[in-house]
C-alpha cells in the first residue's frame, strides 16, 4: 500500500514538473455576454476570448473551469483554480480577500431593468440581484428590498413574473434581455456606477501570476485588440 502511494506520489511529481504552467481559469458560465456555455457545451463569451488571448501572450497553458458564483471566491482561495475571470468587478471589499489584475473593462454602469409601463421606485421597491454581487450590496444600502437569487437568469425571471419590481445588474448583461423582450422590459431609473471595472481575481499569495496577466492585459490595451473584443461582444466603453 505504501509503495503504491509513493509510486503515485512520484508519478505526480514528474508529471507536474513537466507542465508546471497550467493555469486553471475559473468562470461562472452563466453571465452572457461575459461568459456562458453554448449549446455544444463549450465556453463562449467575451472573457473566454479574452482569457485565451491573455494566456497566449503570457505563454501560459490554460484550461477553463466552471464554478457557481456564490462559491467562486472560496474555491479560488482553496486552490481549485488559479484565477477568477467571471465579470467580477474590482471592489474594496473583495480586495481584502483576493488580488485583482488591472481592469480589462471600463467601469460599466449597472442598470435597473423592469417590466414596461409600471412605475418602479428603485430606492424603496423590491429589487432582485444575484447573491454576493456588488449590486446586491448596493441594493441593501440603497434602502430598497433585496431579493437574492443564486444565478443571474433567475433574477430576470423574477422581474418577468412580477416577483421583483426590477433587477439591478451590469448593463452589458441586461441589454440582450431588454432587446429580446420586444418592448416588454425596459430600463428604469438612473444608472449607478459601482465597482472599478472588471478584473481577474487572483490569490494574494500568487503575485507572479498577477504580474504576468497584468503585462498581457496592458499589451492588449496598447495594441487595441482589447477594444476589438469589447466591440465584438458589446461590453461597453472602449479604453
Amino acid at each position, binding site marked *: 500500500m505504501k509503495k503504491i502511494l509513493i509510486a503515485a506520489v512520484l508519478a505526480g511529481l514528474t508529471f507536474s514538473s513537466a507542465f508546471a504552467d497550467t493555469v486553471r481559469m475559473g468562470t461562472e458560465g452563466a453571465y452572457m455576454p461575459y461568459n456562458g456555455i453554448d449549446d455544444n457545451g463549450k465556453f463562449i463569451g467575451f472573457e473566454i476570448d479574452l482569457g485565451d488571448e491573455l494566456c497566449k501572450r503570457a505563454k501560459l497553458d490554460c484550461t477553463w473551469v466552471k464554478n457557481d458564483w456564490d462559491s467562486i471566491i472560496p474555491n479560488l482561495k482553496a486552490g481549485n483554480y488559479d484565477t477568477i475571470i467571471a465579470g467580477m468587478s474590482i471592489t474594496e471589499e473583495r480586495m481584502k480577500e483576493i488580488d485583482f489584475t488591472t481592469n480589462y473593462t471600463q467601469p460599466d454602469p449597472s442598470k435597473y431593468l423592469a417590466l414596461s409601463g409600471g412605475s418602479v421606485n428603485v430606492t424603496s421597491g423590491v429589487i432582485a440581484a444575484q*447573491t454576493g454581487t456588488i449590486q446586491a450590496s448596493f441594493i441593501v444600502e440603497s434602502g430598497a428590498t433585496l431579493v*437574492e437569487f443564486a444565478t443571474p437568469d433567475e433574477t430576470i425571471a423574477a422581474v418577468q413574473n412580477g416577483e421583483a419590481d426590477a433587477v439591478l445588474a451590469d448593463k452589458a448583461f441586461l441589454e440582450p434581455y431588454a432587446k429580446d423582450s420586444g418592448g416588454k422590459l425596459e430600463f428604469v431609473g438612473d444608472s449607478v456606477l459601482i465597482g472599478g471595472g472588471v478584473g481577474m481575481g487572483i490569490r494574494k499569495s500568487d503575485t507572479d501570476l498577477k504580474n504576468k496577466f497584468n503585462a498581457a492585459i496592458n499589451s492588449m490595451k496598447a495594441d487595441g485588440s482589447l477594444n476589438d473584443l469589447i466591440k465584438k461582444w458589446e461590453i461597453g466603453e472602449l479604453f
Partner: protein
Amino acid sequence: MSNCWTTIQDYGLRSIGIGERILPKTDITICEQVVLIGSGLIWNIYFGIIAVFFGFWFALMLAIGKNNKLAIFRNPSNSFIFLFRGSPLFIQFFFVYELFVLLPKIGVTLDFGFLSFSLQTHWLTKAWLGGLFVLFCNTAAYSAEIFYGAIRSVPSTELEAAEAFGITGWHKFWRIIWPSMLRLAWPSYTNEAIFLFHATALIFFTGFPAWRQSGDALYYANYFSDRTFNPFLPYPIVAAYFILVTLIIISIFGFANRYLNRHLDVEQRTQIKLSINLLR
C-alpha cells in the same frame, strides 16, 4: 462580552427583519456567527411547528381516506401520498416554486363575516408560505402512511369489544381507534417530526429566494462560510443548534408518549426509537 451583547441586540432578530439592516461583512467574530445563525433558527422552528401542526390533521384525513373501502376516497389519498413520498423533497421545492411563480398575481379576499382578509397569490412564491406549503404536504404524506399503518394495527379485539357495546361509525373512530392509533403511531411520528425539522434547512437552497437577506440557520451559515472562507466554524454551529432543537423535540414528544401510554402496564408501553422509515 459587552460587544457581544450589542451584537445580540443588532442581529438577534435579524432573520425576521428586526435590527441592523446590513449583515456583518468584515472582521466577523464568533459571536456574530453564533447570534446570526441562531436568529436564522427562528425560521426553522417556524416552518417545523406550523407544518407539523397543520400536517397532522391533513395526514389524519389522508390516512382515514386510504383506509376507506370506497375507491373515490382511497385513490386520491393514495396518489397524494405516492406523489409526495415517492419524489425527493428537494425537487418538490424546486418544482413547486417554479409552478407558483407562474400563477397569476391576484388577491383573493376571504370573508368570514366577523373577519375578512385578502390572500395574495404572490405570497406563495415566498418561502414563508410557499416553502411552508411544500413542507406541509410532504409531512402530511409521510405522517399519513404512519397513521394508516397504526390504524391497521389497532387490535381487532378492541374493535370487536366496541361493536359489542354498540359503538359504531364516527363514535367508534374517536373513542376507540383514535386513541390506540395515536399511541401506536407516536414513536414513528416523533421521528417524522425530527426529520421534518431537519428538512426545513433545505428551503433556502431550492429556488425560494431570500428577501432582505433574511434566511434560516443554514442560509446564514452558508453566508459566513462564503465570507470567511472557513467552513469549520459556521457549519458546526448550525449542527449544534440542530442537535439542541432535536433534543427538545425528543423530550416534548417523549412526554406526550408517556401520557399516551399512561394506562398500560410497563412492559406494554411503546418506546420511542430512531427508525429511518420516514426520512425524505
